[in-house]
């Protein structure tokens, strides 16, 4: 197990507003790392900084021992954005093929990977439909398939299961776990607590700060509570108290 994503004291402000404050995280290969926090807490901003789509105001990001941003590194990162960014006037197949070509997959591998990714998200029968005729959940699944298309070492998934029904969600988690066992690094953001249970490591984010981190079990033991939801509330409460004292 090696450290594949290392964040060193990352801060980010938009104008005067501080969105991320001094965040340091280390993620290892063969690990599912969960960033959990309410919406607006800065998860997406953090994830974009890791991919290199945004620059931190302070601090450094290293992925696979390479300083971000780096173009070659992007070949090893599969990114699923929170908002589906798909070409609505193209079919599912065409969307996947377009991204496969951007990763320079050869024709043979391309077809194989399209078949694999589409099957994984149960979209095989819908590949010839235009994306504008997809439901919200189908678009989400296609976005996930795009993220997986080039078999990346590192998967960064921003709220991947929003709008996906429980059954498919389960099979997607099964696949994420299988990828983890293959030694891939998976960074996932979510605001759903029961998904947090499935992560190996968690970082709870609130207002751009990490209020608590560790494995789900560690966190529960530390706060002597059975549910992560309550951990979150308690950790958040403690933070507020600290703020009040200081």
């Amino acid at each position, binding site marked *: 197990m090696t450290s594949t994503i290392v964040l060193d004291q990352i801060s980010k402000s938009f104008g005067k507003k501080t969105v991320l404050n001094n965040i340091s995280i280390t993620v290892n290969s063969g690990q599912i790392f969960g960033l959990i926090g309410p919406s607006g807490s800065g998860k997406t901003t953090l994830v974009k900084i890791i991919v290199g789509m945004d620059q931190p105001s302070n601090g450094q990001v290293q992925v696979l021992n390479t300083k971000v941003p780096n173009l070659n590194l992007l070949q090893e990162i599969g990114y699923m*954005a929170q908002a589906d*960014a798909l*070409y609505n006037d*193209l079919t599912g197949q065409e969307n996947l093929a377009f991204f496969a070509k*951007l*990763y*320079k997959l050869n024709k043979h591998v391309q077809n194989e990977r399209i078949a694999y990714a589409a099957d994984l998200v149960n979209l095989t029968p819908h590949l010839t439909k235009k994306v504008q005729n997809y439901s919200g959940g189908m678009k989400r699944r296609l976005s996930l398939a795009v993220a997986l298309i080039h078999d990346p070492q590192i998967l960064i998934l921003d709220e991947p299961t929003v709008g996906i029904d429980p059954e498919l969600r389960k099979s997607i988690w099964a696949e994420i776990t299988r990828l983890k066992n293959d030694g891939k690094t998976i960074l996932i953001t979510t605001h759903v607590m029961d998904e947090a249970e499935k992560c190996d490591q968690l970082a709870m984010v609130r207002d751009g700060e990490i209020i608590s981190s560790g494995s789900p079990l560690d966190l529960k033991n530390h706060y002597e509570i059975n549910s992560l939801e309550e951990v979150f509330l308690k950790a958040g409460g403690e933070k507020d108290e600290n703020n009040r004292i200081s």
Partner: protein
Amino acid sequence: MRTIALVKRICIQMIRDKRTLALMMIAPLVILTLLHYLLSDETTSPRLGVSGVEEGLIEQLKEKEIVVIQYEQLKNTNQIIMDDSLDGMLQMEGEKVALTLTNDQPSSSKVLQTKIMQAISIESAKEQANNVSKFVQDIQYKLPNVPVNLNKAKTPEINTSYIYGSNDTTFFDQLSPILVGFFVFFFVFLISGIGLLRERTTGTLDRLMATPIQRRDIVFGYLVGYGLFAIIQTLFVVFYAVKVLDIMLVGSLWNVILINFSLALVALLLGILLSAFANSEFQMMQFIPIAIVPQVFFAGILPIEGMPEWMQIIAKFMPMYYGGNALVDVMYKGLGIDSIKYDLLVLVGFAFVFIVLNIFALKKYRKI
């Protein structure tokens, strides 16, 4: 290879978007056709009322394609002009000449006025000539032994010849090269600009930045993808203008196409560049009055030489200034590649600068 993927995708999207395709290919043809019939239409003959005008002058006026209506006595000139929908009234009493013009359309009034002036001057020249010959006869009669040889004075005749065009040249002939270039420019600008804008607003441009594609791959992908359609459009517009509308083309068709390609290239790059500063299709439209319409003023429809100095300097920064100039040179004046190569070079220069600026503008999405 990434550029090719982008080009292929843009082509599929364009072909599926029938409306945009029609806007690009057919709209310029429709507008050109309308303008062709509007501007090259022969104006109807003006109607002129006359009173107390001699027969000779009336003949002269009729020769100048003026419909002449004679009146005996006039009480209220203005009323008659209105009632009989005349364009003007010419009244003569001995040496006194009075001309009343409706002047509802100043330009056609000017034409009518000029024609009347000409007719009067020709008529008076004739009269003078008659007087002179009468005078000569008189003298001969009085001095029968002195031979007086005098060539009969002729009315002056002006032979007009034209360096460019002919007396059949209409306003549209001189304007049309500029219009052809402008419509290519306008529609390519709009469609490529909105193309990249849609990529920005749907988040796919952001998503592209999470792949190893380089910023210049994106610019070149757009350049080639939309460029292909711009080329087809240029061919459509030029061939339609020359072969169907029969617009005056003295010089080489290939030079015309070459100039329009260069213009399309510049428009495409300007479109995707300005789309970086728009957040919606509507904001893209707002660039039309700012960045596109002024181009027409400097394209040669209005004479640049007559503009104040500072405006002449602005003109030098307008791609259409060079495009319009080159197109008029080739289509109207029939000049060759030698006289347009400077204009073409400047257009390519514009394109190059815009490419660099575009690659730079994408830094907003990813620093590397």
